[in-house]
Structures are given as structure tokens and as C-alpha cells.
């Protein structure tokens, strides 16, 4: 009588199974290891704007912090709007951003706490060297925008907007608002939807005006031979950066201790001095203001004195 014998493929089956099991074990152990690293409490996640990150300031500061406290900081650099949205979802421990309106919304909704001004940089209006709108030397950014719009309408000038809800874009919109101008769908008004570096390069190619932070401008200046700084030193153009911690009551799983440590260090004498000492192409990009209460109040931080006192009282590492 015939019986079905399986000897022929038993070997193949057992070999396949063995390989499969080994792979599963390898993968599981790699994952366990990764998970172990991922879940280490001693990581601080900071969401910040591309402009801060791209300037190199954080790459400059973080090694000092890390050396002192031995904690790694993971920096996620995105637009201001996205940075705050990420924090609102509870995916980071603190934010370093620059958009007063979005910051206040974030704090008022109870997601962020202890907003404090850390530093500021300034914006400049740059444009083609031949300056068709004739704004060179003006100390009034609003007037400069008016002239650009005027010449734009005559097809003599172009303006490139970030159009990405970044802090820079917000500032630009607030200036148009002051003029009661809403330049949508105009041929002279180009909405790029890109980062600052990309927009600067576009402006260089198209001989257009744009609004930029000084840091990014300085780091790209050498590549942008067609462009010049035309308007600066208007108070409107000062750009304050705030740190906001995510609310520990709302996000109990976040590393509040670590966030507090980093924030406290940034506004400490040491941190502020390091910010002032950060130079690129021989120029200071960011000026500290955490301890300059008068200036901070002028730039939209009415509670600066109170918050500074609060931070100074905290001792998270004890």
C-alpha cells in the first residue's frame, strides 16, 4: 500500500523555519534595543523654527548644555506654525519660536506654560541692487512695503513671500495689514511656500524684494550677489524669540523636568552670554534679552519679570 511520505520536503521546511525564526529573533532584539534607547527619559525634544536652526545657533549652544548636564537634545526644525502644532499634540517638551500671535494662542489654550522672551534678532528688507521701488535707506518698513506695492502694480518690482505661516511670513502679513493691503493673486506678489534660504535664492534669481531675518541673510549673503540690504533698524523689524514649556498637567508623559532645565539654562547668565557670543561672518546674529526686562516688555513680553523670577526659583536638577 502506498503512503504519502513527506521526507522530501521536511528538510526544506525545517530550514526555512529556522531562518525565519533567527530573523524574527534578530528583529525583536534590535527593536527591544531601539525601544530602550527611544524610551530613555534623558532626552529633551525641542521644536524650533527653521530660521534658528539654519543659523547654526542651536548647533553652537547644545554641546555646552549637553556637556554640563549630559542630556541629549533632539531638535526638530520646522515652521513656527508646525512647531507649535507639534507641541500642541504633545510630541515635544518645549518650543523656541517667534510669532507673538501664535505663541499667545498656544499659551491661552492651556497647552503651553511659562512663556518667556529669550533673545531677538532683526529682520531686514532686501532687494535688487538697482532698487526699482527706491526704498534704500528708509528707516520705516511700512513705507518701504507701500512703495514696493506701488511699483509692483506698475510691473517694475516683485515681492516674494514665504507664504508658509512662518514667523517671517506672519510679520510680513502684519505689515501689509497696517497698509490695508492684501496682495493676493497679484503678478508682482510671488507666494513661494518655501523656507527662507530657498526664498532668498528665488529673490536673487528673479531680482525681487523680500523680507528676511538677518541671520539667514548673512549666512547666504555670499551666494546672493544680486541682492542688498535696503531697509533695517525699524522697531517693527525686531524679532523676539520665546521659549514655551508644554503644560505638564496636560502632557504628563513629556519630559517637563528636562524642558525646564534647558529653558532655565538658556535664560541663565551663561546661556545668555553664549547667545551673545555666537557669531557668523564676524557678526552677532542674536541678541540676548531674557534679562533686559524693559526691552522684553516692549517686544511683547509683559510678564517677563514675573516669569524670569519663576525660572530663577526652579531647581529641577536637585
Amino acid at each position, binding site marked *: 500500500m502506498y503512503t504519502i511520505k513527506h521526507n522530501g520536503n521536511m528538510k526544506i521546511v525545517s530550514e526555512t523555519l529556522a531562518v525565519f525564526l533567527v530573523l524574527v529573533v534578530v*528583529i525583536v532584539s534590535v527593536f527591544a534595543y*531601539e525601544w530602550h534607547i*527611544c524610551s530613555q527619559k534623558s532626552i529633551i525634544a525641542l521644536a524650533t523654527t527653521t530660521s534658528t536652526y539654519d543659523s547654526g545657533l542651536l548647533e553652537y549652544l547644545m554641546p555646552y548644555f549637553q556637556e554640563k548636564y549630559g542630556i541629549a537634545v533632539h531638535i526638530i*526644525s520646522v515652521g513656527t506654525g508646525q512647531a507649535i502644532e507639534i507641541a500642541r*499634540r504633545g*510630541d515635544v517638551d518645549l518650543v523656541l519660536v517667534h510669532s507673538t500671535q501664535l505663541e499667545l494662542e498656544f499659551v491661552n489654550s492651556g497647552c503651553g506654560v511659562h512663556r518667556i522672551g529669550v533673545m531677538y534678532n532683526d529682520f531686514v528688507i532686501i532687494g535688487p541692487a538697482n532698487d526699482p521701488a527706491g526704498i534704500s535707506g528708509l528707516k520705516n518698513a511700512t513705507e518701504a512695503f507701500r512703495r514696493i506695492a506701488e511699483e509692483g502694480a506698475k510691473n517694475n518690482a516683485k515681492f516674494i513671500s514665504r507664504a508658509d505661516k512662518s514667523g517671517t511670513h506672519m510679520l510680513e502679513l502684519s505689515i501689509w495689514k497696517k497698509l490695508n493691503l492684501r496682495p493676493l493673486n497679484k503678478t508682482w506678489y510671488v507666494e513661494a511656500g518655501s523656507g527662507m534660504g530657498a526664498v532668498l535664492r528665488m529673490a536673487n534669481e528673479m531680482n525681487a524684494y523680500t523680507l528676511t531675518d538677518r541671520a539667514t541673510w548673512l*549666512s*547666504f549673503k555670499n551666494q546672493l550677489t544680486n541682492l542688498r540690504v535696503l531697509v533695517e533698524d525699524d522697531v517693527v523689524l525686531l524679532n523676539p524669540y520665546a521659549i514655551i514649556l508644554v503644560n505638564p498637567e496636560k502632557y504628563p508623559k513629556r519630559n517637563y523636568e528636562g524642558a525646564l532645565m534647558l529653558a532655565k539654562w538658556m535664560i541663565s547668565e551663561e546661556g545668555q552670554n553664549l547667545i551673545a557670543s555666537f557669531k557668523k561672518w564676524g557678526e552677532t546674529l542674536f541678541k540676548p534679552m531674557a534679562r533686559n526686562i524693559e526691552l522684553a516688555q516692549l517686544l511683547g513680553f509683559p510678564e517677563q519679570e514675573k516669569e524670569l523670577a519663576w525660572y530663577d526659583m526652579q531647581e529641577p536638577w536637585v
Partner: protein
Amino acid sequence: MYEGIFWEEVLNITLLSLKVSGLATLIGALIGIPIGTFLGLRRFKGKRTIMRFVDVIMKTIVNTFMGLPPVVVGLIVYLLLTASGPLGWLGLLYTPMAMIMTQLIIVIPIIIGITMSAVGSIEKSIREKALSLGATETQAALLVLREARMGVLSSIIAAFGAAISEVGGIMITGGNIRWWTRTLTTAIVIETELGNFTMALTLGAILLTIAFIINLALTIIQVKGARE
């Protein structure tokens, strides 16, 4: 000093890329090959209308997912892993694990799809032949898989190629954090933005070399397949 850290970072980024895409492809193969083989064997064929319907739906889903833009996958994984999302408790957002998960979703349909068609194209003749030579159904299925091995191998290589060159998805879920979740592709994006063209070009050359090796392997397999 600058030189040292430059190459250290290049190495770090390259290794991370290989690790993330390699693991995603490996896990994707472990999941995708059995499913692809199963679908390719057309066990649903014939008999009942409902089974045929399931078969058609499964294959349509696979083909749809094969064409899914990686950024959409990234967005979905992000919304799953974000602290306020359903898998937020895992705490995996902005980690290499999150990137592996993203690429896994991208590679699985590729592996299933190519395995499915490689198995399906030879299934009928090889299975029938094996059965007539006295094989059991299991033996016949193993032989079909063995005969489809070149197709299965090219599915794995194609999946790895898609994974290593993918940028949109892992940018969203990995966060492009330096020394941590920065891969060849996301690094090229940020370094270009920063104007660090030396770094960007170095990484680009590495990516190009990897892509060349992948395509070389695929071409060799195809040439071999054509000769046979």
C-alpha cells in the same frame, strides 16, 4: 577637527539609512513574501463567488498601496504615533522606529505585488506539473516559490531601493534630527537648504552609489531571468 566630524556625520547618516531601510525591507519581506505567495497561488480561484470577490479586493488594495505617495504614508504614521494619536503611548514619534514603520508600509505592498505576480505567472503550470509528478499540495507550493525565487528576490531589491530613496515619509515621522533620525535623503534636503553643498553632494554621491548597486543587482537578475 572639521574633517573628522564631517566624515563621522557622513558615516552616521549612511549607517542609519542602511539600518532603517534594511530593517524595513527585511521585516517587509517576512510579511510580504508569504502574503504575496498566498495571493499569487490563487487559492481563491474558482469555487465560490465570495472568495473570488475577496481575491479581487485584496489584489486591488495591494495595487493601490503600491502607488501610494510616501508623504501620505508619513502623514498617516505621524497621526498614528503622535502623542495624542492612537499609538501615542508607544512614544515612538521622531525615532528611527517611526521611520522603519513608515517605510514598512511603503515596502510591504511593493514586495507583495511583485511576489504575487512572479508567483502568479508560473503558478498554474508549475503547480500542475509538480502535482502530476506526485507532489503534495505543500510540496507543489514550495516548488512554485522556489521557481519564483528570482522574482521574489527582485521584489526585495526593488523594495529596498524604494525605501532608501524615500524622503517625504521619514521626514515627517523621523523629524530629521541630527545624529538621530537624519538619513541620506533627509540630510540632503536640509544641507541643501543650509547651503552646505559639500555635505549634500557627498551624501548624494553615496545615495547614487547605493542606487547603482541596487539597479545593477536587479539588471543582473533580469538578464539571467531572460536568458532562462
